[in-house]
């Protein structure tokens, strides 16, 4: 599904991501963990095309997407959320989501001027898509609320929905459960399982260990930009290098 070959990103003399190779299988939940500054977010930015790698290749479904600009990568089916998703606070939830499907539409200025059939049809398609993803994340009851008036957890779900509205094949979720309480975290984990059940591939960065261990099919551990381990949660839990680098210091807090 997503294959990373020898990916390296240098910022000045510093290797934020250093020679990472990994393969994420389709229809699985893949997690990336590691201490702060390990290069996890940079890794996402490379995959999504926000940063260009210094060297290495990113292959999505057999196609080399390394040289593409982010908007093309999004069109190829890579959706993502950010640690903080800047939504339009003064607009309703539904309004925020409609633009998510824009990349699957073609209407331009001329269509607006003459109010073309295509524009009307595409606007309906975008609206339907927005409702569909809102329903998927279980938020259709807040459709008309302003973003400013919804809870933190609902914002997280809206951010998911926005990524889903792009019709992705794989979604990159950057700390999706940061800042929500334990029950809500479990709810979000269920939502990720639901995405996989619907044929998506999920890739997430997360600090909440108990959540990751119960959720991920595969975990990759980054430290100082390098991949130090990869495997199932059980393997990672027992890996001495990982315990040394990461879990050792945090285990108590995480448990």
């Amino acid at each position, binding site marked *: 599904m997503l294959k990373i070959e020898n990916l390296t990103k240098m910022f000045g003399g510093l290797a934020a991501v250093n020679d990472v190779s990994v393969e994420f299988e389709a229809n699985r939940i893949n997690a990336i963990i590691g201490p702060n500054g390990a290069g996890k977010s940079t890794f996402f930015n490379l995959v999504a095309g926000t940063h260009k790698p210094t060297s290495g290749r990113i292959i999505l479904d057999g196609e080399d997407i390394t040289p593409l600009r982010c908007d093309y990568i999004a069109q190829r089916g890579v959706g993502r959320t950010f640690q903080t998703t800047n*939504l*339009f606070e003064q607009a309703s939830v539904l309004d925020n989501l409609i633009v998510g499907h824009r990349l699957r539409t073609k209407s331009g*200025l001329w269509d607006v001027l003459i109010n073309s059939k295509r524009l009307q049809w595409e*606007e309906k398609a975008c609206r339907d898509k927005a409702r569909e993803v809102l329903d998927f994340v279980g938020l259709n009851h807040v459709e*008309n609320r302003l973003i400013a008036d919804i809870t933190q957890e609902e914002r997280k779900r809206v951010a998911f929905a926005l990524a889903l509205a792009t019709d992705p094949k794989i979604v990159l979720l950057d700390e999706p459960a940061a800042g929500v309480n334990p029950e809500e975290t479990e709810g979000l984990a269920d939502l990720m399982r639901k995405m996989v059940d619907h044929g998506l591939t999920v890739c997430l960065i997360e600090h909440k260990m108990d959540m990751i261990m119960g959720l991920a099919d595969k975990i990759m551990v980054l430290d100082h930009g390098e991949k130090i381990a990869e495997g199932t949660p059980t393997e990672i839990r027992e890996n001495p290098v990982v315990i040394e680098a990461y879990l050792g210091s945090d285990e108590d807090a995480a448990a």
Partner: protein
Amino acid sequence: MLKLASFMTRPAAKYLLIVLALVFPLIARNEYQVYVMASAFIWAIAVYGLNIITGYCGQLNLAHGGFFALGAYTLGLLTGDYGWSFWPAFVGALLMTAFIGFLVGVVSLRLKEHYFAIFTLCVGFIMYMLTDKWEELTHGPIGVRDIAAPHGFGIVDFTETTPFYYLVLAFLIFAIWFMGKLSRSLLGRTFMAIRNGDDLAQSLGINLMRNKTLAFVLSTTYAGMAGALYAGMVRFIGPEDGNILHTFDMITYLLAGGIGTLSGPLVGTVGIVWLTQSLQFLEEYRMILFGPLLVVLVIFFPRGIVGSFLGWLHRKTLDAGLPAAKQKESRIATGKGVENNA
């Protein structure tokens, strides 16, 4: 109260305001009032342009006054020096501002946020300097005279104030109509997504450069349209019409009315122009009253008159659970009414 407020967002309010604008010359006390209203409408058209790039697309363009002057000078020079009649020169002014807007946009939009604002500030100032110093073309400080007005027909003579008022009103209605369509369309939503953040917009598959350039060209064309109408009405223009202060005036109108709203530019422009007029007796001292008023507005109503009103209305209708809350068409912070009040 709430009923009255929600009436303001209905189409009926829009038609009421158009009727008011139509009968305004009949109820105005003198021709001067009609003239002031016509110039307020012209500025409003320019502010609508600024609203596209700054309000919807989130890029603070400080060259807007320069493009206004570019439109005015293109029309003025083509009719005054080259003997074109009004309408071909008007189209020429639109094409010119669109074309120069494209060139400036392609370069300046590579910059982000403050850098973009500073760059466009410089562009605006260069345009001002050109009108002042390039005497062979622009006549420098002497300015451009003998600008043609549109040809009249029958008893309609566009060198008179009232017919020109209706001409401007027609363009204003067109400008707002198009803005309404744009802001509710997928294209408008695309601009707003860019305003919310480049990174997020790109992750949604939006081509930043293409959409920003389109928004920029649209905004400069609006400025050019306003500038050309201005030249046709005043029929004498000089470098001061491209003064950078006009850009800041327009930003003030936009902020007061409500940035990123549909009716904000009109409310802000017409409101402030009339406020300034009614404080005329204070002469220069009116700024003492005007300054604090603006500060209060920006502090307590950062989203402007229209933005604050719509936010309030949205909450009220949701709380009251009125049927209005289930509007079939949801709309992004746009006043559904075209506020067009005298």
